[in-house]
């Protein structure tokens, strides 16, 4: 365009020269005739339709110049946006990482699926038998390949006396395991056997996890070719798994070892009959879908097979539960024992709600700041409007500025998130929660939404200004806008309240759950052992558990070994005086209870005092009516003020998903026990009240009480179990202190997260409050000047503005307080707080919020004291 216009001017100049003008005069005449070149270029661009690029660049340059002029305000807005957008992106990233991504080391492949065994009774998930697996693997039109594994602890002995032996989790896998999952080993090779069903001869090789070789085997290269004893059997390490890989389903264990299924018989001394037994469910399975096959289609195919096996099992043995199967995308979060979709949903929803609240607060804070900035720019905007700039152009300019800040803030937030995620990953060796393309896309969309929400209203307000209003102080418009600001601040402080309440409840929960030193010492001396006797039962092998217990009891340091049942499950407890059978919506007091069968002395061993009545005695198992010891909470709920000891109680076990049995089991209460907040009986959610019945079975779970810390005994117990009962897998062998600390760690993490949220929201609200008061001071500087000139003391002036900010804060507190109180009352039990603590916490919380808000009001109000009356009056 420029060249063309230059050519035009040259031609016109030539014509004027031909008429007799001088070169200079001809050029001037040509330019006059041509008109304004830049205006014409602009019109030309508009005619071509390409001017938006030029004006976008112009907006960008203008915005950058503005940011350079106001660095403090810009930095505040960027940091606020970084907090809000970064935080929300973090929540999004973590949620997608946990909910949708595969376990570390497993590629994110749409075709990788889990074949889940299902049951209609708790725990709703079942392991698969080998014949069932073979049937699935035979579906070659549905699955390209199927792999399966058995997970069991093993003892690994490197033969170095000083290092001792280590208990590690092993997976005995079908030889096509790594290939099916698409996992590339970090070093070495995979098994020599390669087909799904290759089980003979026994291949005594192993692939070790990265963590295991680094921590125990002296590094990757040193591990390859190393011979170790696994359960006393010589095995050669031939490969190393990639870093952080711990199986297709997240286990959070850094040490793992994989052996081919053919080695299972030798290493675990499992009879091969197990492989043909359709009742012996021992396997997890995953598969790679065939090309073009969907998970839905695969589910239909496996359902048919599962139904066939179910029918065959029921034909041979009376069985209440109905088993089935389905196929779902393989995600790392899936565990054998739960349907994670339902269990994670409440937590996921809570996170999303918190993220939205933070977004709301962040947006209103930025909005507040932008309103203040727009009022400060009213002269600039008014002049531009007067000079003919269309209103839409200026609005676009303002929105561009906010968008740029939002992107910068979002990028800053994402970078922080990325760094934090790496720290978290390194610390936890867990899920991949680092930002990926999905998170980046989310952040971009989020930034645009935030920028629009935050920036549109101030932009519209700012450009509604007329020339006369601009030339005047514009105070009427400013009052309107600052009222909007005040409303935002009040809303933010109100929102901060419930979050702070959750913060307080979480902190209380964490603090309450930190056991005192004596308690930890006590629980370090309690070892819970779980021997899986079901395998030997199926094979009708002799029960070796008594031998194991006898030898364990004889170990130095062991005081006693108490049997513990697996629990009778969950059910509904009601007072036994009801004459008719009651439904779950009955007016009778009833409570969801979890039942544990224990031996006499168990409660004392775990440090739960029997505060009323008595403990079980050996003869209790022979009583006609089952005796029961109830927790204090259950006693209070079911019996109220009545003394429960000697009372009858009805217990209706929850057998199927449809609800509790109609016919209750009649029990008699013989004792009441006070449980501490750790819920001494692990396994079930804490909103079920525990109750205890005498142990009657011959199961494999035991509580071993020791006089010295029990952790060093773990390896010895394993050795005894191996020696006495090689057919019996050891499912669980940990001290209660180890279990507690794992549970506490999870709770601490969640509490810290919520604490962060509450603090974040309060911080954002404070920023908004600060901005509001600062704006008021700035706008009314002339008024301040007049007041001071007329004799007002600066202290009074400062107080005037401070009261304004405090008023907004108190209003926010007043609105948010009922919500906060309601929230705390609801969370009290979960947090383990006493009733008397509730008003104390509320009072403390209110003081904190008011304190922070006061500071945020007082700091800018102080600036009013620095206003020089002469300068303020002169600036009219």
């Amino acid at each position, binding site marked *: *365009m420029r060249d*063309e216009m230059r*050519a*035009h001017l*040259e031609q016109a100049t030539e014509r004027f020269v031909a008429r007799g003008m001088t070169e200079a005069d001809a050029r001037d005449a040509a330019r006059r005739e*041509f*008109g304004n070149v830049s205006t*014409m270029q602009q019109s*030309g661009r508009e*005619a071509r339709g390409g001017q938006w690029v030029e004006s976008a660049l112009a907006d960008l340059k203008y915005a950058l110049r503005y940011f350079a002029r106001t660095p403090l305000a810009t930095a505040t807005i960027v940091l606020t946006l970084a907090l809000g957008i970064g935080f929300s992106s973090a929540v999004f990233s973590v949620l997608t990482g946990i909910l949708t991504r595969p376990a570390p080391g497993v590629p994110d492949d749409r075709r990788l699926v889990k074949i889940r065994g299902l049951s209609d009774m708790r725990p709703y998930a079942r392991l698969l038998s080998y014949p069932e697996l073979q049937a699935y693997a035979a579906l070659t039109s549905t699955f390209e390949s199927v792999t399966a594994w058995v997970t069991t602890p093993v003892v690994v002995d490197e033969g170095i006396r000083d290092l001792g032996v280590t208990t590690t989790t092993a997976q005995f896998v079908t030889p096509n395991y790594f290939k099916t999952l698409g996992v590339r080993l970090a070093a070495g090779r995979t098994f020599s056997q390669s087909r799904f069903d290759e089980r003979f001869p026994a291949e005594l090789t192993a692939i070790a996890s990265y963590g295991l070789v680094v921590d125990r085997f002296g590094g990757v290269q040193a591990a390859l070719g190393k011979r170790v004893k696994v359960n006393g059997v010589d095995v050669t390490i031939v490969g190393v798994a990639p870093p952080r890989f711990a199986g297709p389903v997240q286990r959070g264990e850094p040490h793992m070892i994989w052996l081919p299924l053919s080695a299972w018989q030798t290493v675990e001394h499992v009879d091969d009959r197990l492989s043909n037994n359709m009742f012996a469910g021992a396997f997890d399975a995953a598969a790679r879908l065939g090309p073009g096959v969907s998970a839905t289609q695969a589910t239909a195919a496996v359902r048919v097979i599962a139904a066939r096996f179910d029918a065959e099992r029921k034909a041979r043995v009376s069985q209440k539960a109905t088993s089935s199967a389905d196929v779902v995308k393989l995600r790392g979060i899936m565990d054998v024992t739960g349907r994670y979709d339902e269990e994670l949903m409440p937590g996921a929803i809570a996170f999303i709600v918190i993220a939205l609240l933070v977004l709301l607060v962040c947006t209103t804070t930025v909005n507040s700041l932008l309103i203040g900035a727009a009022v400060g720019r009213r002269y600039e905007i008014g002049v531009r409007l007067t000079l003919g700039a269309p209103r839409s152009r200026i609005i676009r300019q303002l929105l561009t500025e906010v968008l740029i800040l939002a992107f910068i803030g979002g990028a800053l937030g994402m970078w922080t998130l990325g760094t934090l995620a790496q720290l978290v990953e390194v610390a936890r060796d867990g899920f991949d929660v680092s930002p990926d393309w999905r998170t980046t896309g989310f952040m971009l969309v989020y930034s645009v939404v935030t920028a629009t929400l935050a920036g549109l209203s101030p932009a519209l307000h700012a450009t509604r200004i007329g020339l006369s209003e601009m030339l005047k102080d514009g105070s009427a418009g400013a009052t309107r806008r600052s009222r909007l600001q005040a409303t935002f601040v009040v809303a933010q402080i109100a929102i901060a309240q419930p979050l702070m309440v959750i913060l307080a409840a979480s902190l209380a929960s964490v603090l309450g759950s930190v056991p005192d030193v004596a308690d930890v010492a006590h629980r370090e001396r309690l070892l819970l052992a779980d021997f899986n006797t079901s395998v030997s039962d199926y094979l009708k092998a002799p029960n070796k558990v008594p031998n194991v217990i006898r030898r364990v009891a004889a170990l130095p340091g062991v005081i006693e070994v108490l049997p513990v049942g697996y629990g009778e499950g969950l059910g509904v407890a009601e007072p036994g005086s009801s004459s008719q059978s009651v439904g779950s919506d009955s007016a009778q007091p009833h409570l969801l209870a979890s039942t544990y069968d224990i031996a006499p002395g168990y409660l004392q061993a775990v440090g739960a005092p029997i505060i009323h009545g008595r403990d079980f005695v050996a003869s209790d198992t022979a009583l006609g009516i089952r005796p029961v010891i109830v927790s204090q909470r259950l006693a209070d709920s079911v019996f109220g003020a009545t003394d429960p000891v000697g009372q009858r109680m009805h217990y209706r076990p929850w057998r199927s998903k449809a609800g509790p049995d109609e016919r209750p089991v009649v029990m008699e209460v013989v004792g009441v026990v006070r449980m501490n907040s750790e819920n001494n009986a692990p396994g079930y959610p804490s909103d079920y009240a525990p109750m205890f019945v005498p142990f009657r079975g011959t199961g494999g779970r035991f509580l071993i009480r020791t006089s010295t810390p029990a952790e060093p005994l773990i390896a010895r117990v394993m050795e005894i179990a191996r020696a006495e009962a090689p057919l019996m897998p050891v499912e669980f062998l940990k001290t209660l202190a180890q279990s507690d600390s794992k549970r506490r760690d999870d709770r601490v993490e969640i509490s810290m997260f919520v604490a962060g949220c509450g603090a974040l929201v309060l911080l954002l609200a404070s920023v908004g409050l600060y901005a509001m008061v600062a704006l008021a001071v700035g706008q009314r500087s002339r008024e301040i000047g007049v007041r001071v000139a007329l004799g007002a003391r600066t202290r009074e002036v400062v107080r005037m503005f401070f009261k304004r900010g405090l008023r907004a804060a108190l209003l926010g507190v007043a609105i948010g307080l009922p919500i906060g109180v309601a929230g705390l009352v609801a969370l009290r039990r979960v947090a383990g707080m006493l009733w008397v603590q509730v008003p104390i916490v509320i009072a403390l919380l209110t003081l904190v919020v008011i304190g922070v808000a006061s500071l945020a009001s007082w700091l800018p109000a102080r600036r009013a004291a620095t206003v020089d009356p002469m300068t303020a009056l002169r600036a009219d």
Partner: protein
Amino acid sequence: MTPKSASLLQGTLDLIVLQLLRAEPTNGYDLTQRIQAISRDVLNVNAGSLYPALYRLEARDLIHAEWEESKTGRRVKVYSVTAAGRKHLADQRDEWARFSGALAAILKVT
């Protein structure tokens, strides 16, 4: 340019440009001179009106532009009508003929 001519011109500039370029492809400057000459100074189109019109027609693919060397050795951008432009011109001419005929009939009424 007289005010009366200006208001007529705005609606017909595209028509004028297409017609003249169809007769002989040329550059922007020569086009302004030719409009002035053929209309005997009744119509005087300045660069500020002509070039946006040229760019508009070019964006609609009704005319095509190419840089060439003029007789005087200067590099100029020469515009020519495309096939679509010729069709559009024929339609516009018919439109104009109908309009001017109707106007003439009205103006004869006493």
